[in-house]
């Protein structure tokens, strides 16, 4: 395979240095400045992969990200990437590249035999075939034969960073359009960011033969880049692809930071801009003809780029197939480089070809009103067959063919913003339609193929956006511009010769013209159906080289103009972005913010096993038992018989203050908080407007104008926001302030018969006797030398105090309590705490309530009935559906046999196993040491009226008989609470 070669002169590569890399295990050489694509072509590599469905050999089709064929697995020193386009990869020392399609090799692929069955593998075949006897028999084989890239378990050292930046002007693209705009903005004082996907700006100026003023185009680009760099308000991001455009002029960018050994780091930039200039250019569009997918056929501009930027010839003999004048630019460039250009085949009339004289003068044969009817060469193009208007056919040997079927502006980012493309019949291309506010489009993306016009438009765009922000931008000095024009385009969507079954539209997914015709016959004629039925444009190139041809062919089948078809929507990202780069360092312990309790270190000292409950909280303590169940049992026993210490710091604390604080709180809770006296605590629930329980907790009145609301841990922030929402929007005249102070306080609960003795150990400066400090009271004072709030309130059914101190003392308080030598309290985790409250029959929000549970369902009907004044949800609770006896109501369950599971379904009376009607479900369950049996809470239809009834709770294949009871299993008389 020695068709390709390095040209002896020219290019922007560094010929003084050589880079070694491997491809499919073979060691090859290239130069700094090469891409993997140019280096492979220079080394004569021809077949780099196989197509998706038919496993036909695929060669390089483009020089950059537009290439639909060249997906390779690539490893550099820092990371492995399972699928990148060869033109995207910049050559580095030690690079390893491998084909990702073809078995055993891309050069010899056994699956190529699938081509023999192409007749039954057309569009939609999977809806019609491989059904008998069972699709599942064929699916694994089909899966194995498709797909790109193989993941590898590797250690990577590539780092990822994120950057966020705001700017006045964001220019997307560093080609002539972008540079002209940026150049005009130098010295304006505007903060400008220009992003370009190449290591240096210039775009097509780096490889087209152009002159601007007295300089060659590439030299002009270099000088402008230096001028831009000198302005401290302007930033150029090289090797940076803009991957997406979002609302509010937000963009994501992917920047690759390279060294001689690969991509050392990737930066994700998030840019917010006031003004946007889209200067993304355009790419060649393929021509459709029979046999158009053979290795050796490439996009015309890519051939020019290979020759001039990389000093690589794709072949020793080259033909051109074109419907516009840019094909002649390739012919002339190739001829100058010493490549034998055997012919330019132009589908247009001779008079349309503006460069025909120059081409002929260079000794290049030009054929007009001619079409390619066929090609030959399976592993590599060997010839083309051409037919003229008189029908005469001729075979022209060649080993490479450059095609240009027109141009496709890269409008993707505008499409991300919902801009509908508009068809331009002059260019036979889709241009951006109505751009978002503060956007402008310049150059090729706007349909301008002429360099002089592009430069002028760039400067004008800068002037316009300067006017928008009140800054005067001068026009640049007049400069002469030299460069061959791309002339006119006369589209040829569907050739007149050849079988449609041999004409490829999408090279990656093997979509042919015949597939488009199938879709048309079967009425999948909209552009969206065309895409999904044929998979046109669904490959990794997002249809960059296939979409327009495909929809135009469908339009022809339907007898409508291409613009009538519309287009599919380009969606982010423009190129693939590694998930690791997006994640940045949000992995492992840094995956999401972890909330730690003030006494976290003390819990660690006592070998707590933490779980993420929104906060990292001890679930149980290893020091209390060898297993979780043993430890939980010990912790429960400590609370019932002695004293346990539990960290409740995550519970919400909201100070509600002001002259109207009492009235304000009363409007939220089912209980009337306006009658609460200073020093007293009241438990209640609050509902949303629909009457469904939103939160439960206690409210303490600290003084005349100061209340302390304690929502659940999970709702601490949302209840504060709920308070604020109503205060601001519904009751703005109420004199009330809401101050969330949850994290300022550490709260440690001590529960059990010895709780008072343990509290006394902290030397409180107030009377803690039962008479002076009864249940449901709060005191402010000093304990252990620091200010504290102590609430006597119980979640466990035992004598319990919640001691709140400023969080700085949280660890010290926890330590002081647990290290009491005489009393020897145990630390208690959340699992034991919840089981203790279950024994007492107390509600646990989210377990014992669901999205429908109202205060009436949990036994608060009397409270609701007593409220004469209004509260949020009251009206909904008066409606008939809220008062229905058929509702699920919270009851206790005592298992008469076996173990009870939370989530078990309560079977309807008379039923013994599902499928059958069920009356509710078990919301909480545990084995109760105090009761000596499994207990639970359940929401059961008409639960309140069914006390004493025996029901079946079904879970995991068995039904457990349970008696419906009052939820309070432990100390129903509350003697221990008031001890």
């Amino acid at each position: 395979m020695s068709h390709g070669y390095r040209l002896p002169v020219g290019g922007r590569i560094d010929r003084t240095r050589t880079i070694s890399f491997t491809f499919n295990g073979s060691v090859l050489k290239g130069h700094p400045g090469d891409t993997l694509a140019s280096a492979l072509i220079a080394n004569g590599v021809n077949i780099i992969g196989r197509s998706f469905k038919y496993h036909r050999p695929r060669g390089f089709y483009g020089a950059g990200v537009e290439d639909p064929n060249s997906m390779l697995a690539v490893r550099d020193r820092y990371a492995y990437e399972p699928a990148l386009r060869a033109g995207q990869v910049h050559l580095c020392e030690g690079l390893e590249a491998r084909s990702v399609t073809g078995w055993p090799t891309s050069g010899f692929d056994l699956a190529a035999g699938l081509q023999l069955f192409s007749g039954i593998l057309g569009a939609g075949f999977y809806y019609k075939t491989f059904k008998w006897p069972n699709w599942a028999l064929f699916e694994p084989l089909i899966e194995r034969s498709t797909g790109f890239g193989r993941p590898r378990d590797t250690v990577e050292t590539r780092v990822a960073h994120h950057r966020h930046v705001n700017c006045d002007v964001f220019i997307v693209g560093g080609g002539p359009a972008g540079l002209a705009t940026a150049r005009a903005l130098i010295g304006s004082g505007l903060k400008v960011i220009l992003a370009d996907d190449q290591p240096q700006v210039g775009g097509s100026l780096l490889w087209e033969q152009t002159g601007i003023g007295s300089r060659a185009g590439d030299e002009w680009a270099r000088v402008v880049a230096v001028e831009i760099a000198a302005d401290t308000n302007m930033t150029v991001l090289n090797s940076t692809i803009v991957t997406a455009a979002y609302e509010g002029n937000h963009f994501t960018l992917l920047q690759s930071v390279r060294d001689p050994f690969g991509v050392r780091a990737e930066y994700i930039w998030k840019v917010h801009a006031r003004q946007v200039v889209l200067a993304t250019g355009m790419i060649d569009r393929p021509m459709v003809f029979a046999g158009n997918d053979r290795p050796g056929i490439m996009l015309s501009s890519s051939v020019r780029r290979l020759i001039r930027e990389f000093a690589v010839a794709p072949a020793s003999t080259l033909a051109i197939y074109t419907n516009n004048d840019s094909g002649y630019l390739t012919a002339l460039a190739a001829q100058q480089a010493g490549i034998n250009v055997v012919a330019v085949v132009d589908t247009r009339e001779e008079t349309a070809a503006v460069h025909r004289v120059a081409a002929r003068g260079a000794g290049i044969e030009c054929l007009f009103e001619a079409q390619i009817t066929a090609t030959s060469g399976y592993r590599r193009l060997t010839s083309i067959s051409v037919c003229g208007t008189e029908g005469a056919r001729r075979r022209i040997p060649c080993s490479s063919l450059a095609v240009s079927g027109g141009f496709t502006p890269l409008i993707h980012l505008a499409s991300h913003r919902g801009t509908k493309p508009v068809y331009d019949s002059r260019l036979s291309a889709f241009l951006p339609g109505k751009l978002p506010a503060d956007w402008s489009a310049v150059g090729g993306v706007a349909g301008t193929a002429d360099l002089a016009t592009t430069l002028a438009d760039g400067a004008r765009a800068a002037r316009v956006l300067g006017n928008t922000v009140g800054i005067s931008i001068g026009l640049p000095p007049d400069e002469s511009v030299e460069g061959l024009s791309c002339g006119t385009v006369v589209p040829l969507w569907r050739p007149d010769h050849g079988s449609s079954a041999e004409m490829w539209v999408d090279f990656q997914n093997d979509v042919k013209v015949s597939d488009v015709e199938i879709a048309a016959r079967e009425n999948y004629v909209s552009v969206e159906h065309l895409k999904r039925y044929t998979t046109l444009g669904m490959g990794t190139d997002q249809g960059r080289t296939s979409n327009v041809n495909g929809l135009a062919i469908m339009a022809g089948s339907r007898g409508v103009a291409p613009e009538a078809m519309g287009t599919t929507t380009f969606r982010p990202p423009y190129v693939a972005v590694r998930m690791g780069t997006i994640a940045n360092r949000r992995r492992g312990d840094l995956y999401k913010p972890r909330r730690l309790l003030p006494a976290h270190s003390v819990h660690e000292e006592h070998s707590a096993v933490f779980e993420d409950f929104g906060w990292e909280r001890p679930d149980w303590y290893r020091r209390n038992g060898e297993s979780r169940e043993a430890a939980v049992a010990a912790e429960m026993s400590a609370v019932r018989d002695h004293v346990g210490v539990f960290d409740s710091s995550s519970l919400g604390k909201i100070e509600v203050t002001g002259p109207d604080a009492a009235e304000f709180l009363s409007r939220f809770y089912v209980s009337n908080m306006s009658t609460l006296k200073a020093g007293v605590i009241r438990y209640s629930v609050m509902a949303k407007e629909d009457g469904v329980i939103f939160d439960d907790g206690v409210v303490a009145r600290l003084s005349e104008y100061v209340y302390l609301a304690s929502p659940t841990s999970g709702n601490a922030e949302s209840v504060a926001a709920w308070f604020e929402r109503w205060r601001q929007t519904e009751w703005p005249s109420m004199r009330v302030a809401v101050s969330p102070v949850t994290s300022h306080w550490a709260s440690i609960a001590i529960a059990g018969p010895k709780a008072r003795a343990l509290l006394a150990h902290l030397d409180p400066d107030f009377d803690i006797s039962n008479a002076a400090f009864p249940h449901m009271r709060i005191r402010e004072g000093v304990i252990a030398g620091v200010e504290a709030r102590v609430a006597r309130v119980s979640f466990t059914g035992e004598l319990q105090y919640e001691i709140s101190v400023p969080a700085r003392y949280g660890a010290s308080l926890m330590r002081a309590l647990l290290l009491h030598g005489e009393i020897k309290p145990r630390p208690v985790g959340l699992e034991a705490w919840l089981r203790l409250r279950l024994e007492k029959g107390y509600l646990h929000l989210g377990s014992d309530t669901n999205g429908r549970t109202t205060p009436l369902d949990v036994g608060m009907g009397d409270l609701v009935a007593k409220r004469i004044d209004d509260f949020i949800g009251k009206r909904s609770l008066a409606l008939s559906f809220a008062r229905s006896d058929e509702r699920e109501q919270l009851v206790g369950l005592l298992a008469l046999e076996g173990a009870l599971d939370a989530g078990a379904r309560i079977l309807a009376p008379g039923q013994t196993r599902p499928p059958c009607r069920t009356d509710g479900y078990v919301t909480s369950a545990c084995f109760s040491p105090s009761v000596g049996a499994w207990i639970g809470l359940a929401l059961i239809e008409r639960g309140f009226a069914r006390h004493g009834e025996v029901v079946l709770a079904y879970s995991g294949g068995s039904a457990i008989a349970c008696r419906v009871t009052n939820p309070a299993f432990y100390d129903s008389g509350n003697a221990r609470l008031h001890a």
Partner: protein
Amino acid sequence: MNLQPDSALQASFRGKLPVTGFNSARAVLLERADIGCVLLTAAVDGAAVIVTGSAAAGVDLPSVAGLITRADGRTAMWLSPKSWLIRCDVEEERGLVGRIRNAFPDHLCHATVFTDALCWFELSGPGSLELLTEGSPISLERNGLPVGGAKRTLVAQVAAIVVRERENGWLIAVERSRSRYFANWLSAAAASRE
């Protein structure tokens, strides 16, 4: 017995200590456990309490977002149209609350110690801006956050108050329970840049 205080990162209270685990040649990260805070929240329109509140606090309460006022070692930051955060020496927090409560016996403006709700970090050095923009979309540039200004935003997914004390010097406050995560995140960001 007397309880002993710890900083949010379990270091010495009232200290200005380097954060363990943060190593960077271009930035310095300290935990500022010497900063006390008082949260002021008005029960009426903010304008109605600004004069009295300012007098009691000993520093003018700003009436505009992003503004910080300073006096006698105290600073006041606008949090919302009806709330402010006053920074003071941690020794002064209780006295400040007392003065404000005396000025508003009916709690038309409520003052509460807020010191332990937050953990303050001081990030400085030529690499400080890069580290912050790693995790924050806020505008840290010209007209965005000038020296002497403050903003509330997200940094590394954590709600933060960012104060620009100097060109390359920032005070950042995060809610106490997230302080360890935040410090670890900054440390990891700094380490991967070296």
